[in-house]
């Protein structure tokens, strides 16, 4: 598509100023190539879809098999989405990553989300990138750099964030997170016991402190598939 001239940009700005959030969303949707992919107006190489999401091959992939996973509803950034949508998308991402590991004998995958231009977001439609990864695939740009910062900064950051966290999560006063102190001798934090999971739900009750966690078999079928996943996990050893 075309770049917009400065005059048109001004006109556009004027136009957008008078729009209600709903109108703005409609406007964005109409101009969104990914909405057109979802509606089928623009062709794409579809890999998976359900009522809430669509996965297509990225035509400008970082690696062969690079998947874009789109919510069918138009959202620019993740915080605009409902929790249901978010939860659903990432479950789908888990299974798509698994499919990549199997299909390409990939040695890993990167799940990447950019919220906002500053984060490198290029499209106006929120999406997940799921990129199959191989040793020496020249994607070290995806490594996360580590920088040393003063401990006092960490302390300040934590104080600022914790206040907002307690507000956003609506935590009760008693449940305010206390800072973990160095070596604790008492038992590790236990989950609140009254909360019983759904009866039919089999939830691993094993506590993390037991070194040998029972690995819960994935809801997938053959042993061969399991093996390929274990191979990826084994690479650490």
């Amino acid at each position, binding site marked *: 598509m075309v770049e917009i001239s400065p005059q048109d940009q001004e006109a556009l700005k004027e136009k*957008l100023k008078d729009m209600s959030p709903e109108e703005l969303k409609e406007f*964005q949707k109409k101009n969104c*190539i990914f909405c057109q992919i979802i509606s089928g107006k623009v062709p794409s190489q579809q890999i998976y879809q*359900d009522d809430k999401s669509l*996965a297509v091959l990225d035509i400008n992939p*970082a690696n*062969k*098999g690079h998947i874009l996973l789109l919510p069918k509803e138009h959202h620019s950034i993740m915080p605009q*989405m*409902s929790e249901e949508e978010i*939860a*659903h*998308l990432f*479950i789908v991402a*888990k*299974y*798509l990553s*698994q*499919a*990549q590991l199997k299909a*390409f004998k990939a*040695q*890993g*995958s*990167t799940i990447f*989300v950019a*919220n*906002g*231009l*500053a*984060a*490198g977001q290029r499209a*106006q439609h929120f999406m997940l990138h799921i*990129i199959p*990864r191989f040793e020496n695939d020249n*994607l*070290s740009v*995806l490594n*996360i*750099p*580590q920088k040393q*910062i003063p401990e006092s*900064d*960490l302390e300040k*950051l934590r104080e600022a*964030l914790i206040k907002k966290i307690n507000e*956003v*999560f*609506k935590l009760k006063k008693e449940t305010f997170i206390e800072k*973990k102190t160095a070596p604790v001798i008492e038992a590790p*934090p236990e*989950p609140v016991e009254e*909360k019983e*999971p*759904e009866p039919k739900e089999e939830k691993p009750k094993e506590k*993390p402190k037991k070194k040998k966690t029972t690995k819960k078999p*994935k*809801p997938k079928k053959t042993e061969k598939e399991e093996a390929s*996943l274990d191979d990826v*996990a084994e690479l650490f050893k």
Partner: protein
Amino acid sequence: MCEFCDIVQGKEQAETLFEDEDILAVLHLKPAYPGQIIIFTKEHHTIIEQVPDPVVQNIFKVANKLSTVLFETLNIQGTNIIVQNGTAAGQTIPHFSVNIIPRSENDGLNFQWATKQLSKDEMETALLELKAHTEGIHPDMFQKQKKTIEVKTEEPKPVKLDSKKEDYLIRQIIRIPRV
């Protein structure tokens, strides 16, 4: 032996931000951008494929909320959410985790990958290979979420991007993606 398991067990000190029965969120001690948050499962799982569906759901809901917290607390214009799944993906600690990285203009970070030019044939093959493994995926197979989640769900909050918000939306529209 696992750094995250040590934090869960209290053997290792950490700047804990949030905790529920499944997961723990801490400040990254060596952040790419100050305020980088790392969320991990309390139970030891190496890669996302091993994490039970309800926990995957929970961890990303929390990731979204924490991303909102970063937006509202720090003077930032974006966040990245990155999962490094496997050593080939740069994962260094063999324990599944989600990184939330605050971003601002000119922060010196760059995760922009170079694209690989694939032939039509290669794309076609990739599609077929993948589809052979995605045909069986259906929402019915996703494990249901626990009814009793500690954190109540609420309406998604609009993110305040200050004065930049309006601009941001406009720029989003102007920068129509070239696909």
